[in-house]
């Protein structure tokens, strides 16, 4: 199974780097949104707004970025895929791929925000850990939801309606984590928020692993 996951992952990466249009679109989305905030706020925002805008941009761009992740697997070439791979390896490879994309989005967004507004973070390490963990749980929730919404008739609208309320706890938690990162420079990374993110990761990945096979059934 590990071999198949690796194969599927490499296939996804290769497909996206051979034809990087979609990657460019995602990057452009992030840059445009942060520039809109720069223009709208005249380049001056306080720390709390910095955090809020930062995560909101990440959330919306990741919803856009993951929306089409199952176009091949569940729609056009569905039969072909299920003949070759088990649905569990498909979802796991997708989760890994999407988390890589989302980590890239977060880094790009951080660069944009540092460029436009400066960087108020003092505890960079904890923030980095938060970005990685949040990308993984975002990716697992959004992968499952994109699978759900691609099966329905009006996908793109449904995708945000279904995912936003579910992502709410994650958003609140991340905002709290970033407030911590702005205030203190402590070495202790095991805050409550990090524990919560770990818990969320375990729950969401296992939910994906259990529920996705039912989504593939025909």
């Amino acid at each position: 199974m590990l071999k198949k996951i690796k194969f599927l992952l490499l296939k996804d990466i290769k497909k996206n780097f051979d034809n990087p249009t979609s990657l460019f679109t995602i990057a452009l989305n992030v840059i445009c949104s942060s520039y809109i905030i720069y223009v709208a706020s005249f380049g001056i925002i306080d720390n709390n707004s910095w955090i809020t805008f930062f995560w909101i941009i990440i959330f919306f761009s990741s919803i856009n970025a993951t929306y089409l992740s199952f176009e091949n697997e569940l729609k056009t070439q569905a039969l072909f895929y299920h003949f070759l791979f088990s649905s569990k390896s498909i979802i796991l490879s997708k989760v890994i791929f999407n988390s890589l994309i989302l980590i890239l989005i977060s880094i790009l967004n951080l660069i944009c925000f540092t460029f436009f507004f400066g960087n108020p973070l003092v505890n960079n390490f904890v923030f980095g850990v938060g970005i990685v963990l949040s990308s993984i749980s975002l990716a697992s929730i959004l992968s499952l939801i994109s699978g759900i919404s691609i099966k329905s008739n009006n996908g793109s609208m449904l995708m945000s309606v279904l995912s936003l309320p579910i992502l709410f706890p994650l958003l609140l938690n991340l905002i709290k984590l970033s407030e911590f990162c702005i205030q203190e420079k402590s070495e202790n990374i095991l805050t409550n928020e990090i524990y919560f993110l770990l818990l969320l990761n375990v729950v969401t990945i296992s939910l994906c692993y259990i529920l996705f096979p039912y989504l593939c059934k025909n």
Partner: protein
Amino acid sequence: MKVLSVILILYSIVGGLLFDVPKLDILNESIRNLYFHVTMWFSMIFLMFLSLINAIKFLKNEYEIFDIKSEAYATTGLFISILGILTGMVWAKFTWGTYWVNDPKLNGAAISLLIYFAYFSLRASFNENMTKQRVSAIYNILAFVLMIIFIGVLPRMTDSLHPGNGGNPGFNKYDLSDSMKLVFYPAVIGWILFGCWLTDILIRIKKIKSNDAN
């Protein structure tokens, strides 16, 4: 079941309005709302849990009846949670001064409402029956688990205007005196039974409809 639920709810209304309550600052007599507001949330969680169980059963063996049940429980749960949010808003107006505050538990309530509205809009967007049932069962499970994390874990980590926080988001020891327990627990059972009764009627209506369709 119906008779018992009617009796218990009537008892909680009469008892809730007439029995002695402890005199607390700010809350005063508005503490009587506890018999309605809190009990509604308890029964809402219980109904959503039944909806989750039916969703799991549906995924296991794909009988249509489980899907009907799951949807019906979610409908009544949503109805009762709207009632709960309205009573809560009235209570908040008299104790905290506004109808809505930015409090972890209020966010949790709003989010669980939104999640189940999303569940129904998901159900509405399918033409084919089989996919609709399976996909909505999957979403039901995902949504319930994350909702429980949200209203069960997150409020424990923050301060809230609700009692018993920074440790325990459930209701608390200090304002629930013995005379209040006499009304509170029957009221919880009464609302749960009332929800089950409503759901039962909904299930029957839907069964008849789906028989007609076939």
